[in-house]
């Protein structure tokens, strides 16, 4: 009994599914062709390679086809598709429709496979003698990624999850028994409001480009083992490794910036498992890049270089497993929920783990592992040590992040540390100290051997200057209370000085070396910026007036970090005088205008700015989703978000003229007044000052016969005086009046009638009910000092990477 459903658009889905199958087919074909091309005896026979190239390029076309179909579906709001229904809605602007695209797991897998397809095509053009072996590995990875969005059941096991599943197939509900069910579904579920941020348009593609590009150095390292070209893989892999590190680093910091700008957890890094998952492979590949350089220059540390490059991609896969399998469940707020693809992800992970492992074992005897120790005063030795320290720091992050995995494997029930940030910081600051120090003094070392006397002389200058600068810095930024912070600051400054030294050499003509120096300076700035901003951020909205909830509560005194602001009542907050001025709604967001003022001792206003933290109010769900607003100064930021606001009722708050606005007020009180009278109300009194016989009303032209009288009132409330002039109008035979509101006093005043026989005027006073009298918001504000060092350091570091990529890419073509 088939139902003929009406209004469905099945073509884009069918076409998309066809492209998915095509992408799997072409990637398998590319894998097989490149494999045979690699093992072919006759190196002149290019037929396999030709097929491989064609298949891989077709694969990219198929992937673009999948993307186009999916985008068509989301863009046209075809809610008969589950993906469109669950991730988008009609009210979203176009640029957020792009974010919808990768909000779900399927879309983010598509992004990954797209980048991998594109990068593979570049490798085809550039790799020359490496093409066949490297492309075999990349095609293998492409096969795995393609199956992630297949969504077909084979032998009862679900392979992948397709973005083209129809809503009626994805879930069960009685409406699907109706042929016209689609007409009942007016809108999709929409995009998570936290993701409706411009950073969410750009951050995921960058991050996934970073993840995807890690396959290339991995493939070179594995191909080197496979083809027994143990040493020459480093040179062509080098620019790729630098590229991956640069892009992934940028992606991670973009995520951090998004968290800082759009989320209200009050910081830029929280050691959340999802964040950790992305930084672990980044750190290992950074370590890998350094050892690769050492190996290229001296022949030392072959195994470490290959191992680190390989493990980095394995850790990318491990990171995907962590974030996509739902295993992080109770420890992370960000992770995806499970889609039943755990096994598939694990197979992908194991293949890419065991394949190089087996190759290592087979080739072990022949690997170019040096028996001789490096000289202690040589650059390669300290490159190696630095890489090892980075790797150990990763082990620490992995160990804590993987607690849920250990729980799953061993059936234990261990909870993560109660203060995770403290736990990570205490280890990572120590590691960062060592790494920054090494990145400093190793600049004075040369490969193979260094003149020890010269080394210590040049070192001592930077060493001493760093101590002096550190003393000043820690005093100025106020972090001298903590020994670790002082050491960390010293190490970073030392590194900046040492690398600055190298950079000054670069200005004299050794341009080649500038890339690493710039990147190191950026990294050191980033470390210092993160340290100061994280260590010294200060909640400025401390509540000092809190009303006690008994001694028991006061004893366990957590800092009271939220403060309530009533509309138009300035509140003292640290050095600021803060006033909530009102709200305005634009689209789904309500913006709360908060004014900050700093007055110096002479009563002059030295700082004056408004912030507009916003909250998405969802009256239906009785919830708010708050986003911060930040005032950026060169040396510090003032970060503000609302923690709680009165929920708006859907109908009431619209203050349109004439629209049952009076419901917002208590029962009106009618007074008969003459000039000079005083009328009392709950919060104060008002004086009838006079009559304006020539009152004017906007937009209403008056003729001679019309009478418009204004009543001059002086309202005394909240120790302030407000003026209001309600108007009474006789136009022709009609009596109309125009009320005036004094919101600050919670009043609405109407001049409702003139009583000539009594020689009095009728004034009707509307008062807001007591509890609704004042609008309020609960606010949290944090001052982040020197956070621009963190962002600025990132930019400098990326510039350094770009310089290095150019240098290393030139080495490849030059060779």
């Amino acid at each position, binding site marked *: 009994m088939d139902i003929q459903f009406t209004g469905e658009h099945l073509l884009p889905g069918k076409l998309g599914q066809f492209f998915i199958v095509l992408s799997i087919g072409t990637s398998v074909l590319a894998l097989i062709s490149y494999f045979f091309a690699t093992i072919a005896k006759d190196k002149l026979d290019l037929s396999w390679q030709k097929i491989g190239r064609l298949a891989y390029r077709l694969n990219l076309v198929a992937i673009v086809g999948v993307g186009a179909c999916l985008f068509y579906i989301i863009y046209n709001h075809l809610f008969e598709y589950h993906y469109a229904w669950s991730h988008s809605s009609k009210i979203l602007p176009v640029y957020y429709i792009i974010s919808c695209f990768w909000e779900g797991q399927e879309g983010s897998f598509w992004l990954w496979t797209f980048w991998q397809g594109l990068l593979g095509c570049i490798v085809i053009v550039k790799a020359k003698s490496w093409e066949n072996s490297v492309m075999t590995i990349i095609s293998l990875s492409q096969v795995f990624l393609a199956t992630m969005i297949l969504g077909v059941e084979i032998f009862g096991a679900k392979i992948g999850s397709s973005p083209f599943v129809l809503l009626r197939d994805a879930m069960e509900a009685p409406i699907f028994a109706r042929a016209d069910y689609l007409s009942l579904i007016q809108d999709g579920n929409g995009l998570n409001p936290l993701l409706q941020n411009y950073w969410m348009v750009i951050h995921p593609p960058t991050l996934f480009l970073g993840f995807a590009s890690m396959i290339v150095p991995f493939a070179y390292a594995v191909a080197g083992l496979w083809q027994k070209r143990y040493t020459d893989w480093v040179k062509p892999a080098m620019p790729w490794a630098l590229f991956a590190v640069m892009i992934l680093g940028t992606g991670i910091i973009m995520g951090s910036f998004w968290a800082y700008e759009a989320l209200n957890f009050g910081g830029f890094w929280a050691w959340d498992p999802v964040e950790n998952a992305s930084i672990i492979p980044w750190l290992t590949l950074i370590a890998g890049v350094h050892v690769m350089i050492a190996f290229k220059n001296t022949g030392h540390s072959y195994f470490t270089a290959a191992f680190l490059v390989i493990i980095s991609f394995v850790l990318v896969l491990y990171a995907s497993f962590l974030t996509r399998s739902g295993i992080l469940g109770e420890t992370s707020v960000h992770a995806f929920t499970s889609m039943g693809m755990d096994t598939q992800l694990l197979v992908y992970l194991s293949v890419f783990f065991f394949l190089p492992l087996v190759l290592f074992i087979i080739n072990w005897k022949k690997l170019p592992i040096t028996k001789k120790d490096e000289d202690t005063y040589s650059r390669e030795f300290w490159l190696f*040590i630095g890489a090892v320290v980075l790797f150990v720091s990763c082990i620490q992050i992995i160990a804590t992040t993987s607690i849920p995995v250990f729980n799953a494997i061993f059936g234990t029930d261990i909870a993560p540390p109660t203060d995770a940030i403290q736990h990570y910081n205490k280890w990572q600051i120590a590691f960062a100290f060592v790494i920054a120090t090494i990145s400093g003094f190793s600049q004075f070392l040369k490969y193979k051997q260094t003149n020890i006397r010269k080394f210590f002389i040049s070192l001592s200058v930077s060493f001493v200057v760093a101590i002096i600068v550190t003393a000043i810095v820690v005093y100025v930024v106020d972090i001298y209370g903590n020994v670790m912070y002082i050491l960390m600051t010293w190490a970073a400054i030392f590194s900046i000085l040492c690398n600055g030294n190298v950079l000054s050499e670069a200005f004299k003509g050794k341009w080649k070396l500038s890339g690493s120096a710039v990147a190191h300076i950026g990294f050191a700035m980033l470390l210092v910026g993160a340290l100061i901003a994280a260590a010294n951020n200060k909640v400025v909205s401390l509540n000092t007036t809190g009303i006690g909830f008994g001694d028991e509560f006061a004893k366990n005194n957590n800092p009271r970090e939220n403060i309530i602001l009533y509309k138009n009542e300035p509140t003292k907050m640290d050095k600021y005088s803060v006033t909530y001025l009102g709200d305005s709604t634009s689209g789904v967001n309500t913006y709360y205008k908060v004014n900050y003022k700093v007055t110096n001792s002479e009563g002059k206003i030295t700082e004056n700015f408004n912030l507009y933290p916003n909250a998405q109010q969802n009256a239906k769900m009785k919830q708010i989703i708050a986003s911060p607003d930040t005032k950026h100064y060169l040396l510090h930021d003032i970060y503000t978000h609302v923690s709680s606001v009165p929920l708006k009722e859907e109908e009431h708050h619209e203050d349109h003229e004439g629209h049952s606005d009076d419901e917002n007020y208590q029962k009106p009180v009618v007074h008969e007044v003459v000039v000079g009278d005083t009328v009392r109300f709950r919060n104060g009194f008002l004086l009838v000052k006079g009559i304006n016989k020539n009152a004017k009303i906007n937009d209403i032209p008056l003729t001679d016969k019309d009478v418009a009288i204004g009543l001059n009132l002086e309202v005394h409330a909240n120790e302030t005086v407000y003026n209001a002039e309600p108007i009474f109008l006789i136009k022709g035979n009609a009596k109309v009046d125009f009320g005036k509101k004094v919101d600050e006093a919670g009043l609405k005043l109407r001049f409702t009638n003139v009583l000539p026989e009594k020689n009095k005027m009728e004034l009707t006073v509307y008062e807001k009910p007591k509890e609704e009298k004042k609008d309020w918001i609960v606010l949290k504000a944090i001052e982040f000092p020197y956070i621009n060092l963190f962002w600025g350091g990132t930019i400098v570091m990326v510039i350094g990477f770009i310089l290095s990529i150019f240098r290393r890419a030139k080495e490849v073509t030059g060779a």
Partner: protein
Amino acid sequence: MKKSSIIGMIIIAIAIGAIVSTYADSSTYGSFSEAIKTKKELHVVGKLDLAKEMFYNPQQDANYFSFYVNDNNGENCKVVFTGAKPQDFERSEQIVLTGQMLGNEFHASKILMKCPSKYTEDKIEVTEVSAQGKI
């Protein structure tokens, strides 16, 4: 001894140190009755008790939020959180509290909620008034 083996040993020592510290710092999942016994901070997993009062009145104190939670053993306890009421709190289907017992109240320093948020919930909203209504 070769330098590399010394370095290797130091690394292994640090790595072991890091892992041990992970477990020294790690906490435990427990119930309210266990929280009464121990002085340490721990994690309690439970569900919000919607039948009892949830109290947050920012006009009185913007940093006091109290509610009742049934832990996984079904034990009910009042929880106090020094801070603003988290967004979307009522809709949480599972709550992980970090904190300790103080008198009869559990003082949470951190609340982690798992919400079937609007954006992952598979619930179709039907706009037609008469027909089946909400599913």
